Every structure is written in C-alpha cells, then in structure tokens.
C-alpha cells in the first residue's frame, strides 16, 4: 500500500472521523490563559492543542535586528516533545524554523508594525498536542493572541488547510488524511478583505481541484473568523 491507497472516505462522502468533505473539526478558543503575557490564546482544533503568547512591544535585542522604521516580529513556533507519539527532540529544527518564518511573514501583513519603530513583538507558539495542521492552528491562535494583547492590526489571519484524499478534495485534513492523502493546501486568509497572507502546497492538485480546495479554505476561514471574533468579545468560544 502506498500513498492514495488507504481508504479514507467512503462512497457516501463520509470521512474516517465522520465528517463530510467540507466540515471543519470542532474548535474551541480561550483567551488570557497565560496571565503574565501581554496577550494569550489557547486554541483546540480537533485534537490539536496550541497556546500562543504575546510579549511586547519591547526593545529589540540584539540591536542588529532592530529596524529604524518599524517593529520586528519574533515568532517562535515550537512543538512540545510530548505533542506527538514520536518524541520530538527539544529545540529548533528545520521544520520549526520554516513555520516560524512563514508565520511571521503572514502576521507582518496585518500587524501595524510601523507604529513601533526599533521594537520587537515576541510571538510564542507552543504546540501541546499535534494532530494535523498545526501551522494553521498556530497562525490563527497567534493572530487572536495579538489582538488580545492590544497590538494594532488591520485584520485577523485565519488559516485552514484543505487537501486531497482518495481523489476527493476535502477541507481541514486530520492526521490520517494528512499522512496518507495526496495533497495539502494550507492557506492564511484575511477574512475582512478576502486577501491572502499565506499559501503553501504539498503534493499535486489540478487547477479544478485547487479551486475547490481554495473555496473550501475561504468558506472555512470565514466561519472560523466568526469563532475568533466571538472569543475576542467574550473571552472564549464556545461559551
């Protein structure tokens, strides 16, 4: 058996966890989980469990990273050693470096960095439990935590991944689908303007499949944005 051979969706379009193609895993959001941070957010998305904490704006150290006209975002994405069944060696690795970089670049498009020259805003994303799509959960949680910290932003970033399993395009891949599926398309959407802040793709999709995955992501992002806004207004979602 190779990739694409594992049956993950039945003839009725029901996936191995009981969802339909366009369904998103259950989401819960809680704000203020790290009292010492300036802003924080815990997001559970399926079995994913992520904490994002924001510190700053503060003086940027070392001085060589300072920018005279804007703040810098210091994003650190880290998976806890116990977050997956295979123990992850603590510390930065190639993957976490890459995700930290793309997360910072996605957030830079919404955070009004020009208001805090020479400063640094520290964004800490810790994956407590990983199922699939942790970069999406991390990015969404970080944008909610930034809003909670009172950092001026022009929009939130909501990130979702769609992909292809057994030649069917589905929304919000779970672990099995992510591991044995044919393609994965994580996207970071600015829900109020409909713009894109982040796009990656793993595997192959035809133009039609790409469009379908895109539409799934856009629709899911709008729904999840509603959850994020409710959490920001009331402190948690669901109540």
């Amino acid at each position, binding site marked *: 058996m190779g990739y694409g051979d594992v049956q993950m969706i039945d003839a009725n379009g029901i996936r191995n966890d009981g969802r339909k193609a366009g369904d998103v895993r259950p989401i819960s959001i809680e704000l203020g989980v790290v009292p010492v941070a300036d802003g924080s957010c815990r997001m559970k998305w399926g079995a994913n469990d992520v904490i994002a904490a924001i510190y700053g704006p503060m003086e940027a150290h070392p001085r060589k990273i300072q920018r005279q006209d804007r703040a810098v975002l210091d994003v650190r994405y880290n998976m806890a050693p116990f977050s997956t069944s295979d123990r992850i060696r603590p510390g930065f690795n190639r993957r976490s470096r890459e995700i930290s970089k793309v997360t910072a670049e996605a957030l830079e498009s919404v955070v009004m960095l020009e208001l805090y020259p020479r400063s640094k805003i520290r964004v800490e994303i810790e994956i407590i439990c990983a199922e699939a799509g942790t970069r999406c959960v991390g990015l969404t949680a970080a944008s909610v935590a930034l809003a909670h910290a009172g950092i001026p932003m022009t929009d939130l970033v909501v990130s979702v991944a769609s992909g292809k399993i057994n030649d069917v395009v589905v929304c919000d891949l779970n672990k099995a689908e992510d591991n044995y599926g044919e393609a994965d398309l994580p996207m970071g959407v600015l829900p*109020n303007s409909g713009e894109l802040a982040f796009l990656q793709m793993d595997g192959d999709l035809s133009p039609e499949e790409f469009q379908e995955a895109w539409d799934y992501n856009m629709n899911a992002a709008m729904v999840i944005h509603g959850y994020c806004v409710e959490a920001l207004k009331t402190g948690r979602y669901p109540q």
Partner: protein
Amino acid sequence: MKGGLVARADNMTEKKNAAGPQDNQRDTQLVAPGEDLGESKGHELGHGVIAIDGRIRATKNGRMNVNGNTISIEPRRTAYVPRPGDLVIGYVEGCTNNIWFVDIGAPFNAILPMSLGPSKADFGGTRSVIDIGEAILCRVQEVEETHSSVVTMKGMGLRKIRSGAVENIDPHLLGRLIGKQGKALRQLKEESECRVIVGDNGRLWIDGDFNGTLEVRNRLRSLTAEAKAVTLGGVA
C-alpha cells in the same frame, strides 16, 4: 503631608473627557481588529481605527465609542506609549557616569541625564543619588520619533519615591480611576486618607497608612475586574 497635592497628573485630571466621551449620543459596541465600522466619509477617526478604501476599520479589540462624529475604540489592553509632558513613575534599571536608564513601562527605557536629575552629583556619582531599583516620580521631557524618551526630575513635586507603595493599572483605565474632572480620584484620596499620585503610564504611588493603602488597592482591583466584565459583555 498626608493627602496633600504634591504633584498632580495635570494633563490627565484637567481633561474634560478623561472618563471617556460624556456625550449622550454615545453608542457602544464590542469590536475585533479588522471589523468594518461603516463609511469613513463625514467621520473623524479617533484611537484604534483607520480608514481603508473609504471604510472605517477597527485596529484594536475593545469597545467602540461614537462621540458626535468621532469614532474611536476604547481598547481592552494597551501598551503605554510616552508623550512629552506625561507624569510617570519609573524604576531605575541602570546607570552610567552621568545618565540613569529608567523603566517607565514603555517599549523603551527612558534616559535621565544628570543635568535633569534631582540634585548635583559628581561625575560617576549617579548611584549615590538614585540607585538601581529605586522608584522615581518624573516627567517625560522629550520623545523622539524612534520612541526613545528623555525624562526630567526638574519640576514641582518630582522626586525619588522613598515611602508608600507603587501599584499598577492598565493605562486605558486611568480615565475611569480619575473620573470627571478628577472627581473620583479626589473622593478616593479623601476616603482612604492617602496621598495618591497617578502616573500616566498606569503606575500609582500610594502613600498612607496600611488600611488606606489597602482601600486604594481594592479600588484598583475592582476597577480592573469591572473593566474586564464590561469587555466580556457583562455590562454594555
């Protein structure tokens, strides 16, 4: 000296709108960053909003206030950004031969040159005048474009804090603490029989007996809890 007005946060207490907009037309609504708040034409933009393509967008999470034709957001949390003339309470974090570095709760430490210090000191004698870790009441003299600031201790009532306690509150709650033309703060001072000096950076110097200090602390705590309840949708 108890209860006496030594240094007044004059730029806060005298402001007519210190407690937020008093207009009857006020409309409140909780908003999240990016939320569309209507057309920008005919509106003035206050704190926490920007205009993009003719529409007003929120940039902060908090309560929207409509005061006349000005739309602003009272944020849930803010970082202190120094402005010239602000009365602040700072902690000395370090010093050189003729400069103190003061933590005023802003992204950057402020500097206090010896020429603006409380008293004459010999070159290299900064620590004998104000030591590291000590709290001072000072005023922001200058803020550069790059956010680094200079504070001064030359001025009436500006001094080293030798007694009492320093407490913190979120800077955006100061308006509520002070009240309309300083009424609420005056009342608090009278009730607690404490000297309370409010810094614009959200730090308060409370000087008085134990029970008075406790009373002020309780007031600060209830204010913070109240604000949280408001933003959490308890009271609109």
